[in-house]
């Protein structure tokens, strides 16, 4: 089964070492770049090691015996620190230090596996590029700076920041693998979001629904790419994770990818946040192409007053609806609405404030670092990432178009209270960027036509819509 794989990172065991059940023994990489972790099934003593095989980058034959462990029923583990009594010679120390430079590691490991050598250098550059985009170009800096830094730090050779015991690995395992961080972010987003515009004009939920079309067409696109392009091999789960980029919602994308396709998490998160930052560039041409000047000038009637009571009951209604119809979306929508309830209830201001500030900020930093740690050369520098980037663009474009077209369809059926189709594009979420784009294009046509608040309706409906879409995909595949 493990034909011709290579040990990547020997556990550095010696004969006589104690091993507990569950202890790490070796990490093996097969040809498909899948990592296979070998752990001990017993507790005991290492009684034999095959020194020829048990070292880095050595190909293994099927059936090879790596090591033997003698089972013991009582495991003794002492905190006594073994002292290095043997003399360190100057030459040894200097050569060890030389070998512990990043430069040396990159060059020497590169000969065995380019993803461990030049690949790391390239990924550090990718990280720096993300930081540059965040700072100099203003691309979602709150996420792209931590993600970029996570990529840089995780790819430093011999720093082990993203290895067992490294801080970013802890962060990833405890916050992202478990889905905790995206949910807390969603709680913070809920606490920062005013659903009033949606409540004032509930018809705009339909725009938020239509814009999810981008998600499902992209799913088809991903499968087509798999068929057509060699080097791209997306399963249906992968395709679903990629497709959710079209939801234009970072935490939802990360949550879904961490459940369905952890290996693609890095590329997907980077694509999602990059395209969210590019909304002002991607959407306008599509919006103009699909609307006439008259349509873009439609003035919508002022939004009605929404009472506090409605705003308080609304999150409860959404949660109940989710519980009845789509429980798999309940974590995402539940935490979003919990945050919103804290906000609107007005009686837990201190909780709401902390959720909107300290809590979401702390989690954002670590979410970014953790996501960045998935940007490794073997997972990122391949055709699939290219595919994801192309598909992401499609996802956004289709979602935008679907939202605009939906608004036009709705106008056919209602003669009064026409909807300005420019607010349809805001249904992709990307709060509040997409709503601002709608507003700006509207002002370009008519400087007195402020669409911002009208566009916030589909915008926040889009957040719910993509969480619903994520719930559906989870329900199908989990």
């Amino acid at each position: 089964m493990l034909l011709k794989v290579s040990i990547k990172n020997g556990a550095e065991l010696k004969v006589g070492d104690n091993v507990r059940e569950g202890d790490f023994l070796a990490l093996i990489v097969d040809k498909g770049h899948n990592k296979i972790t070998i752990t001990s099934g017993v507790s005991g003593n290492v009684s034999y090691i095959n020194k020829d095989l048990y070292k880095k980058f050595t190909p293994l034959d099927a059936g090879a015996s790596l090591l033997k462990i003698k089972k013991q029923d009582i495991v003794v583990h002492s905190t006594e620190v073994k002292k290095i009594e043997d003399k360190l010679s100057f030459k040894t120390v200097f050569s060890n230090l030389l070998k512990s430079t990043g430069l040396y590691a990159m060059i020497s490991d590169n000969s065995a596996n380019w993803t461990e050598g030049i690949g790391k250098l390239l990924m550090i550059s990718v990280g720096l590029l993300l930081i540059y985009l965040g700072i100099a170009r203003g691309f979602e800096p709150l996420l792209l700076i931590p993600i970029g830094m996570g990529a840089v730090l995780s790819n430093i050779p011999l720093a082990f920041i993203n290895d067992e015991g490294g801080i970013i690995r802890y962060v990833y395992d405890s916050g992202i693998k478990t889905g905790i961080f995206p949910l807390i972010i969603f709680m913070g987003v809920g606490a920062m979001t005013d659903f009033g515009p949606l409540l004032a004009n509930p018809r705009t939920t339909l725009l938020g629904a239509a814009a999810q079309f981008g998600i499902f067409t992209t799913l088809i696109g991903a499968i087509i790419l798999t068929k057509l392009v060699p080097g791209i091999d997306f399963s249906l789960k992968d395709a679903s994770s990629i497709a959710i980029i079209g939801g234009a919602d970072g935490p939802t994308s990360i949550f879904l990818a961490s459940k369905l396709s952890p290996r693609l998490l890095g590329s997907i998160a980077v694509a999602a946040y990059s395209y969210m930052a590019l909304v002002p560039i991607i959407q306008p041409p599509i919006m103009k192409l699909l609307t006439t000047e008259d349509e873009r000038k439609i003035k919508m009637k002022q939004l009605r007053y929404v009472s506090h009571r409605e705003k308080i009951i609304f999150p409860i209604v959404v949660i109940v609806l989710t519980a009845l119809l789509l429980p798999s979306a309940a974590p995402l929508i539940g935490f979003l609405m919990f945050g919103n309830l804290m906000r609107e209830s007005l009686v837990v201001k201190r909780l709401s404030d902390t959720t909107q500030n300290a809590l979401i900020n702390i989690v954002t930093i670590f979410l970014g670092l953790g996501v960045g740690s998935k940007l490794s050369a073997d997972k990122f520098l391949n055709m699939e990432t290219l595919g994801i980037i192309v598909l992401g663009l499609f996802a956004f474009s289709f979602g935008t178009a679907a939202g605009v077209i939906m608004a036009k369809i709705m106008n056919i059926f209602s003669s009064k209270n026409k909807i300005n189709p420019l607010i349809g594009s805001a249904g992709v979420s990307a709060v509040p960027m997409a709503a601002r784009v709608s507003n700006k294009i509207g002002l370009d046509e008519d400087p007195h036509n402020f669409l911002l608040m009208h566009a916030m309706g589909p915008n926040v409906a889009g957040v719910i819509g993509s969480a619903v879409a994520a719930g559906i995909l989870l329900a199908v595949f989990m």
Partner: protein
Amino acid sequence: MIGNAIMLMFIGMGIVFVFLVLLNAAISLLEYFTREHTRNEESAMAEADLARKNKKKRKSMPASGSHVQTAVISAAIHAYRKV
């Protein structure tokens, strides 16, 4: 697999629409049942707003013979006399 993907699209978009249409309906019901309350709250808010604005006006434009104005005037006079 493309068949599966297409099917997923239909089912998925269907459920998204069902969910959000139901949400639409729920919001409308919510509006309907809180209509009375909303009206009261709105008018109360409007009144409070008005009251606050008046108060502010009074504060920033103490034109109506208050003692602050008096002080300003007398200060001015005093300054005049000094000259």
